[in-house]
């Protein structure tokens, strides 16, 4: 046994060195942080993610801080997590998460969020066929998949020819109207692009008609930008869709347009969705026929609502000030679903607040602090922790 000492030593070295490193050596590398609830219900703050970096002596480490703790992204470098990471933006949408849960098989290989439509009866997905991508054949072929929620049957129409195949199509929005599927495309041709709505028969997949939006614009300007105002969730039914319009590179003559899938008419709105008296930075959320918008200033956030159908406006129905929140600055705001998320800063420390969209009531307020036992002074923490972004990540509740 004695003469095997060298081999035994090698085995011990091999296991010991690596084992010690991964069990003990890697501990205590980076300080842990957490969002501490100062007011309200911690559960309301569950979707809040303060994202940024931690500055070390010679390098910075990206990290996310939530109400559950901190997560350093430099750690997530292994294969399983790297694969799972791909396409997280797509998976963020709660409706997509719900679709994945309900119809896992149908959702395979579908990742264009603008191509989804869902109502109580059906799920529709539209995608441009990629099979001709690397050939010289015409690019523009449409593929439509329709899932009947009740029976689970799927009808697929592949290779629906589009009438101007030499142009590049992009799917912006999908809607279902009785037995028709309407798709809003952006079509690129040399250096210009145009929006057009195509209607297809949902029984046969044949193209029924085409409506070019540019023909219905009031102004005949040649250089203009017509952009879809995205709905809160791209896959919900909504008969009306809205656009921003401006002319030229200096964005003059700003207007909003509304298009009705049912009538096929594009009409200019007498006033923009956010009204004429908007000032400074604002963010909005179009939720079906309700257009919420929030004006952000360092000292206050003002919430307003515009009903697109009734045209009633509830201007500044709620105001939340930095003083009320006890912070130095309100730095950002996002409206998602029925909540308003604010990014805050107090004495060099970042935090977040969650308001109820309906009335601006404060539901949660929290700030990033060191998790217990870190050993950093507050000064050091302020120097090292730079959480500059507020990201909202929803997880589907089971």
């Amino acid at each position, binding site marked *: 046994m004695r003469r*095997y000492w*060298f*081999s035994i030593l*090698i*085995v011990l*070295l*091999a*296991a*010991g*060195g*690596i084992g*010690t*490193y*991964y069990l003990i*050596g*890697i501990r*205590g*590398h980076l300080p842990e942080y957490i969002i501490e609830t100062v007011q309200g219900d911690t559960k309301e703050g569950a979707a809040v993610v303060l994202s940024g970096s931690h500055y*070390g*002596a*010679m*390098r910075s480490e990206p990290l996310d801080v939530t109400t559950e703790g901190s997560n350093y992204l*430099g*750690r997530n*470098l*292994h*294969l*399983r997590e790297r*694969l*799972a*990471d*791909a*396409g997280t933006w797509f998976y963020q949408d709660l409706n997509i998460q719900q679709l994945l849960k309900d119809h896992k098989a149908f959702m*395979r*290989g579908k*990742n264009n969020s603008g191509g989804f439509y869902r109502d109580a009866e059906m799920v529709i997905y539209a*995608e441009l066929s*990629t099979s001709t991508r690397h050939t010289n054949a015409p690019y523009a072929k449409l593929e439509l998949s329709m899932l009947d929620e009740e029976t689970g049957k799927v009808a697929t129409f592949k290779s629906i020819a589009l009438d101007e195949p030499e142009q590049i199509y992009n799917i912006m929005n999908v809607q279902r109207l009785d037995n028709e599927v309407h798709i809003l495309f952006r079509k690129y041709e040399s250096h210009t692009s145009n929006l057009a709505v195509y209607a297809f028969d949902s029984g046969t997949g044949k193209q029924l008609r085409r409506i070019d939006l540019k023909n219905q614009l009031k102004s005949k300007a040649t250089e203009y930008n017509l952009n879809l105002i995205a709905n809160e969730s791209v896959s919900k039914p909504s008969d009306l869709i809205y656009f921003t319009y401006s002319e030229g590179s200096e964005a003059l003559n700003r207007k909003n347009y509304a298009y009705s899938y049912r009538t096929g008419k594009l009409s200019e709105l007498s006033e923009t969705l956010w009204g004429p008296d908007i000032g400074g930075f604002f963010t909005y959320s179009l939720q079906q026929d309700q257009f919420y918008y929030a004006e952000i200033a360092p000292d206050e956030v003002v919430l307003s609502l515009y009903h697109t159908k009734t045209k009633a406006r509830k201007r500044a129905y709620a105001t939340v000030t930095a003083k009320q929140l006890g912070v130095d600055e309100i730095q950002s705001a996002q409206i998602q679903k029925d909540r308003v998320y604010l990014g805050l800063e107090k004495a060099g420390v970042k935090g977040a607040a969650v308001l109820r969209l309906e009335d601006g009531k404060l539901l949660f307020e929290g700030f990033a602090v060191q998790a217990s036992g870190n050993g950093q002074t507050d000064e050091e923490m302020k120097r090292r922790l730079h959480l500059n972004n507020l990201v909202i990540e929803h997880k589907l509740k089971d």
Partner: protein
Amino acid sequence: MNRYLKLVHMEIYRFRIVLLVLMGITALCQMSALIWMLKKALSDLRGEHPEAGAYFSPIPLRISFEWAMFNTQMWFIIPVLLCISVLSLYVFFIWYRDWIGRNAFIYRLLMLPTARRNIYLAKITALLLFVLSIVSFQLALLPVLELVIRLVVPAELRADSHIIDIISSNQALVELIPRQFEQFFYMYGAGAVIVAAVFTAILLERSYRRLGILYGLLYLSGCGLVVASPILLFGTNESVIYLYPTEIYLMLLLLFLLVASASVWLGMRLIAKKITV
């Protein structure tokens, strides 16, 4: 089991000098480079011989291992590259050394009253042990070098570094020693699968001689195709992938397992039935 262990010991024993020399060169090279850099930095801090632009990053107020590592990287990387080259060559030499010359030791090995697969298993075990022990040696060397810094640099000019930061400052070590054990397992596991496949290719050559070289190359290409099949099937630019990420992960795992078992099975069969002296 007993004879397998004895064979492993024999393989380790045969390689012991090379192993010790590699470790020695690594220790010597890294230690001297570190000491030289520290002395230079100290004298510059004390304002003795200022040399503009002599460092990759300016001298901090307090010298840390992290900083020293960043500036002496090359001298740390050279012995690492040496170890990698020697071990890579030994993947082949561990077999071919038994055939060289008239004193062909392979006769003895093939006539041992133990299952032939133990020869295969002993060689792959030994090789893996060599790789892991050198990695461990490098890891164990770092605290020793930290001690050297303590001896050379006085406390008021010194700052501590965490071992992860030290490793992250070195372009080679940061790749070879991942932060998470799971990634370490994937990396070195994949390496072990590659070694198993190469061993099988070597045994194909040793069993079929000239035709065997062709078989060996074909076999390795086959293994490569199997493992790369997800990329080939789905394409790198294609956005339409019909598998969810977890499924792709499991698929890759399965493919590697497949290549590993095929290689080991084939290798053991070749050495038992087809090998020729």
